[in-house]
């Protein structure tokens, strides 16, 4: 166990600086939210050795801000040799952020008043279809087409024998219906982080695409998209539902 020298932080200078008004001048929105506090169901560590569980309060010495903190050479593990970052010559387009057209902050220096206002442009519902309909539509079209989905083991994007057989049948159908474009959607169960599951879903969808390509489906006919653990097929926290969500979902008729 590490010993911990408790640093006595000495007070630093506190200069009373008049806070500049800094009013954000935006139009006013109605405060219509309401929420109730609930007793937290998840308790942070109280039983285990308290020192270990209190994060930043147990640093052994007053950490220095900034200067070189993150450049500390971590002793374990190898380093990759320094390299120049590769500038992409086939430059993808990078969009431009809109210029600031909001009115400048009202000067409150005159009277010292602080004008309080805020605005967030509330989105108006567009003509977009509700997701539930879209998902059902996708499944309907898949059922009609007779395309079978492929399922994966936890944390895996490897095709199983069942999966390969399903894809073999799917490939036959696709060849018989040569005009249909195919979208392969990758999904994950709810465990793990959202971001990493997007990567995992992409790997699953690409595994399906790769196998179908091996079976002779032209890659240009196939689009791949990952939803990670979003748009789940079911929400129960059961192994059965988890398995339902770990899938490559085939949808015909994409753009």
């Amino acid at each position, binding site marked *: 166990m590490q010993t911990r020298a408790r640093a006595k932080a000495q007070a630093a200078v506190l200069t009373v600086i008049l806070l500049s008004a800094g009013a954000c001048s935006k139009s006013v929105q109605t405060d219509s939210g309401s929420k109730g506090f609930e007793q937290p169901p998840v308790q942070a560590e109280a039983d285990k050795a308290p020192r270990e569980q209190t994060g930043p309060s147990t640093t052994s010495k007053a*950490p220095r801000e900034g200067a070189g903190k993150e450049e500390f050479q971590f002793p374990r593990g190898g380093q990759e040799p320094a390299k120049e970052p590769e500038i992409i010559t086939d430059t993808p387009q990078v969009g431009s952020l809109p210029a600031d057209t909001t009115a400048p902050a009202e000067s409150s220096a005159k009277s010292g008043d602080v004008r309080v206002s805020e605005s967030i442009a509330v989105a108006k519902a567009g003509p977009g279809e509700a997701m539930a309909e879209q998902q059902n539509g996708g499944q309907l079209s898949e059922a009609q087409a007779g395309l079978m989905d492929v399922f994966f083991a936890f944390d895996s994007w490897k095709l199983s024998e069942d999966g390969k057989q399903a894809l073999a049948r799917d490939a036959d159908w696709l060849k018989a219906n040569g005009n249909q474009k195919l979208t392969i959607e990758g999904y994950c169960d709810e465990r*793990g982080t959202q971001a990493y599951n997007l990567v995992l879903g992409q790997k699953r969808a690409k595994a399906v695409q790769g196998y179908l390509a091996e079976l002779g489906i032209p890659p240009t006919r196939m689009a791949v998209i990952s939803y990670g653990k979003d748009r789940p097929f079911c929400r129960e926290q059961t192994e059965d539902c988890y398995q339902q969500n770990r899938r490559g979902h085939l949808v015909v008729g994409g753009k």
Partner: protein
Amino acid sequence: MLLRIGLVIVVAMAAGMAAIMESGAADVFLEATRPDFQKIPVAVLGFRDQKMADSPGMRLTEVLKADLRRSQIFAVTDPARLGLTLEGLNGAQNVLFKQAADNGIAVLVWGQVAAREPDLVLDGLIYDGVKQEAVASRRYVGAPSVLRQMAHRLADELVYRYTGEPGIAKTKIAFVSEQRGARELFVMDYDGYGPRQVTADGFLSLMPRWSPDRRFLVFTTYRSRTKQDIDAIELATGKRVTLISMAGLNITPAFSPDGNDLAFASSQDGNSELYRAELKTKTVSRLTVNSGGDLSPSWSPTGRELAFVSDRGGSPQVYLMSADGSNVRRLTFEGDHNAAPAWSPRGNWIAYVCRTPDRQFKLCLITPDGQKRVQLTSGQGVDDSPSWSPDGRHLVFSSIKDGKSHIYMVNSDGTDLERLTSGGVHHSSPAWSPA
């Protein structure tokens, strides 16, 4: 650059003495969660409101007290227990002030709110029980609908006066919420009030992050329905632009602290790699080259380093690298799944999602040199998406329990867990705004 000032106030029983000394060590910053930190006792007497409808005085008091408590700087004490009341100010104020000071109350706050059609005017007064003098008065003017924001401003004023740091009471949290099957971006106050819907694509908008000037959210969008893009939306106007539209994945966007660069992950080159787009020159640099998946960049507060996730070693782990992609080194070595890093604005901790030996996804903290690691949350539920408050003393995160995903706030030492969202089934991906 935030003014980093450390402050310790030792409040003696009879007469508090504020010891304010020039520190010999440079850049010692306030660590309010240290066990030996003495919170500053504050009492809010209340706000006179001439018995206006809706009791704005009482509402202001409640919001202000909650803000001061959450700041971790103040210990909110009940003045009534000491016989100190708002009405008592009508009499001999000096007696009241002395009584407060004698009882170790370092800060007294009170004021009044009045109608000035169509606005409300809040006059806040701050009395320093240590110096025994009124130190500030502040007048806030705004529509009745921003009453809570007025209290937040006053709370932040108090935090600033006693720490030199901007407070968090006026900050916002962006997040994703499910509405009739679609997942859209929302923004709410840091305490969970007043959520406003920002996107209405009817499909999926994910993983929002703030620009440093708080004007924009960047996020992953499926607006086209057929692919992902990284869009930015201007919160004040709703204007929307696509910033990145590479092939394959376009995920985990993150603005650099100076706002000039956007780090993100894309699989256009086969598997998920990290890229950096310079928004002014429109140059895109590729930061990672390996057969593993790289994602979830998080900038250090100086902008010189990135924490990120890579499974190049076989399982997802947190790595660090310089902002140009060089000097990659692995940070996490405990556990077989470590992801979603978030570098504290103070630079001293990186929060992330760790999978525990009993297979639960929880929040952990690790120092950037990897020397110290703690588990912050425990129990059931899949915890995800940690995001730091700008004062580095709080985190928001999501947690899925019993099929529902909600957003929680917690102090960086694991105390004061508080749920911010209510109702609905799925709220996720919180991102705390800059100050």
